[in-house]
């Protein structure tokens, strides 16, 4: 499929990404930062689609935007303590942090632009129809041989299992009714202002 209006969509998605990132680190309320992060992640999924990485884009929307961000929002709303709007959002050392961030950005862009002759300036159009199948053959292998990353895949699933068990054990440390009782004790708290 021939790409249509590629540079327009790239600039649209890239500006959405950068704008979302800016909003994440500057919003006063944590809920608004989470919303901005969702916008950023969806825009990055669009960028993945433009890079012919359809499976990674689908996985990002499903796992990152649909799962991790829901987790973040649940965590924010479960522990909302009615922060007054006059509390400062930035640490006292922000006057060091912000310039160092800008310096890091300048350094990275300088490195990329200067090193441009080191990598070939082409963009190979990968096959679109078989992206998932090719990733599957890398992860799981063809009949007759295992894939290159099967071991890493199994280790990753084990890691996820350990993380889930650890989080469950930590949360239910105060008994099985832990989360529900904690939530019920917060019923008269103010709702998160967004």
């Amino acid at each position, binding site marked *: *499929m021939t790409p249509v209006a590629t540079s327009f969509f790239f600039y649209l998605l890239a500006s959405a990404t950068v704008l979302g990132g800016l909003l994440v680190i500057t919003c006063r309320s944590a809920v608004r930062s989470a919303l901005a992060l969702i916008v950023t992640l969806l825009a990055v999924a669009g960028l993945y689609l433009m890079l012919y990485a359809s499976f990674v884009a*689908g996985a990002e*929307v499903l796992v990152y935007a649909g799962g991790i961000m829901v987790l973040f*929002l*649940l965590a924010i709303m*479960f522990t909302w303590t009615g922060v007054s709007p006059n509390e400062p959002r930035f640490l006292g050392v922000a006057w060091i942090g912000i310039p160092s961030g800008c310096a890091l950005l300048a350094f990275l862009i300088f490195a990329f632009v200067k090193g441009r002759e080191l990598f070939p300036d082409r963009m190979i159009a990968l096959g*679109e129809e078989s992206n998932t199948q090719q990733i599957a053959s890398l992860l799981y292998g063809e009949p007759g041989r295992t894939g290159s990353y099967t071991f890493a895949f199994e280790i990753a699933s084990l890691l996820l299992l350990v993380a889930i068990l650890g989080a469950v054990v930590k949360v239910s440390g105060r008994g099985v009714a832990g989360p529900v009782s904690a939530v019920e004790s917060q*019923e008269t708290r103010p*709702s998160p202002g967004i």
Partner: protein
Amino acid sequence: MLNSLMSYLGSTLSPGAAGNQLWALIYVVFVFMGVSAASIALYWIEHSAGSAPCPAAADGISNRETRFVFWIAPIMGLLAAFAAYAVIPFGPSQAVTDVNIGALLILGVLSLNVLSILLSGCVPNSRGALLTALLSGARMVLFQVPIGLVAVAAILMTSLNESGTGTLSMIGIVQAQEDQGTWFLFKFFPIGLIAFVVFVIGMVAQTKRERLAVAAERPSDAGAQNEYDGLRRLLLIFGEYAAMIAVSSVAVTLWLGGWLRPFASQLSAPSWENIFSLFPGFTFLLLTAILLVMTVRGGSPSRPRRTQLAVVAALFGLIAALLFMIAVAGRSSDRHILASLRENVNYLYWFAAKVAILLSIILYYRSARSRNRFGRYFDQSTRLAWKILVPISLAVLALTAIVGLKHETWDQAKQLLRMRS
């Protein structure tokens, strides 16, 4: 422009895959109109005709400073529901587009519905709205685990055709059901049936029925959405019904064979084709008859008046006559346009009929009558999900893989034996 309209008509690709933007736009407009009409009809069926929230009503939220963020929950719900329609197919090339990760995209987009629920709890000065929204959102996320697992089982079944590779694209899933000659509902019976039932249960739990999540004694039982009114409430309701239709369409595509008519491969003689193509006309004839009976019996205060019923009955009668004409005229194979029109009408009809049957199941679960019967199951929905649905879906996934592997190795063994002897 007429050229680009006509040039697409004989193509076998969806408009998105063919790069044809005009037809993609036409499909988008039609899908939008169809889903809006269906949502209005669903609301009309579930509640009485005149109780929709007035768009101009002011709610407690807009009395304060009107903030942009209070639109986010309704709009995100709408966007998440409608974005799924971009890949749902009504025919072998009738979809807005056919991404080759269609099923993954739909699962991901439908999980954005949870965000709408969570954000609707952020209304200020409302006791208990936050709690209800959080628990409802957590329940929705919880029920996505069995839904995802059985969807993977269905996709696993697509890899059992001759080419040996499965596909995630929605059109590919229905074509795999066509190639294998059976809907995935009946494949490896009863594995497909169990998977479908788990999917439907998860689907019902996903449709934001807050009063089933929290115990009935709480005063804040009605849910966070009651804080909204006016246009926002209307959009929330619309998004809820659109999401219901989207998830039903996904279930139809994954399990019930999409646009395929029943017994598409077992009874494939042209005479059977003609008989099955009369079904759309008969359905609308039946609907006309029901509406005429309702007209004759007259209207009660909560039902629409006689004239409205009569008008709708006449409209359905006209549609029935039109469908009969198409079914009869499309039989002769030399009239290419009429034959393809009959095919398209049949595809759309079978798809819509299956979605309608599924939606009626969901509506039945949601009705107040059934709450007393099934209420005690759904009130402990967390227990239902973790102890029953997740083990069953894991078992379905493992059994599908094992039986499918046995199938394939058995076929390969037979081929080897045939080659050797």
